[in-house]
């Protein structure tokens, strides 16, 4: 089973990385770009496991390791 985890900076948290890339995109001519936020896409290959189990485990993994919930939020999809 394959899962995709998305970890992004919380809305209230500054995202210097996103800001810098947003400015760069404006500078090279993409003036329609209004805001950029940069997060992580984590692709996980899971072995033999039920979808229900996977959901439980992924949530745990996010809370424990993949996301820093102090400054980041997460979501995931199971394929």
């Amino acid at each position: 089973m394959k899962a995709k985890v998305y970890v992004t900076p919380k809305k209230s948290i500054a995202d210097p990385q996103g800001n810098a890339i947003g400015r760069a995109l404006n500078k090279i001519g993409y003036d329609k770009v209004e805001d950029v936020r940069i997060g992580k896409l984590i692709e996980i290959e899971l072995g033999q496991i039920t979808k229900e189990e996977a959901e439980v485990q992924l949530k745990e993994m996010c809370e424990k390791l993949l996301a820093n919930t102090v400054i980041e939020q997460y979501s995931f999809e199971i394929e």
Partner: protein
Amino acid sequence: MKFGIVVFPGSNCDIDCYHALKDTLGQDVEYIWHDTEEVKEYDCVILPGGFSYGDYLRCGAVAPFSRVMDAVKVHADKGKLLVGICNGFQILTEMGLLPGALVRNKNLKFICDTVALKVENKETPFTNRCTHGQIINIPIAHGEGNYVVDDEELEKMKKNGQILFTYQENPNGSVLDIAGICNENKNVLGMMPHPERACEDLLGNDDGKFILQSIISFLEGGWKSE
């Protein structure tokens, strides 16, 4: 003979390159501000280390779009010398002036240390003052110095003698222990180690002079291929 050092807003080693060339080696050196199109004629242009635009997303990703870069490309296309050190190397690969890419160090950590390099090819403008196989000690300071390139390109580089420096003990996971390379035409150098940090006895090491002196000899026309 004139050296130009490009200064991006986040350059940190611009000053170090300047001092090494000017104060230690007595060369004529100028800074070139990144936000300019008019660039004078230089014999050698240096892209120094640092974090050109913060190095968010990927190191050196934004710098290729600086106004100065068109002129830098023209400079290199004319066959003049262009040197990228550390962040400068990353920028040169991002621009496609050098093959491959630099990704995160294998141990995922920034590494600042002095490492032993082996000179793999002395027949270039950047290494002519070295001997073949010579070991020189040069500082490194990078988080993304892990050189990757596809096999086909790598074969080509080997055949053309484009691999100039290799690590004696690979610190970052680079393929074939690569620390520095040049382009096919041998006028563009990219290296992760910092020769400008090793040009003075007071700092405990002047092996960097082998590289900078090679460039000077070449420009003075003193270098003859054997």
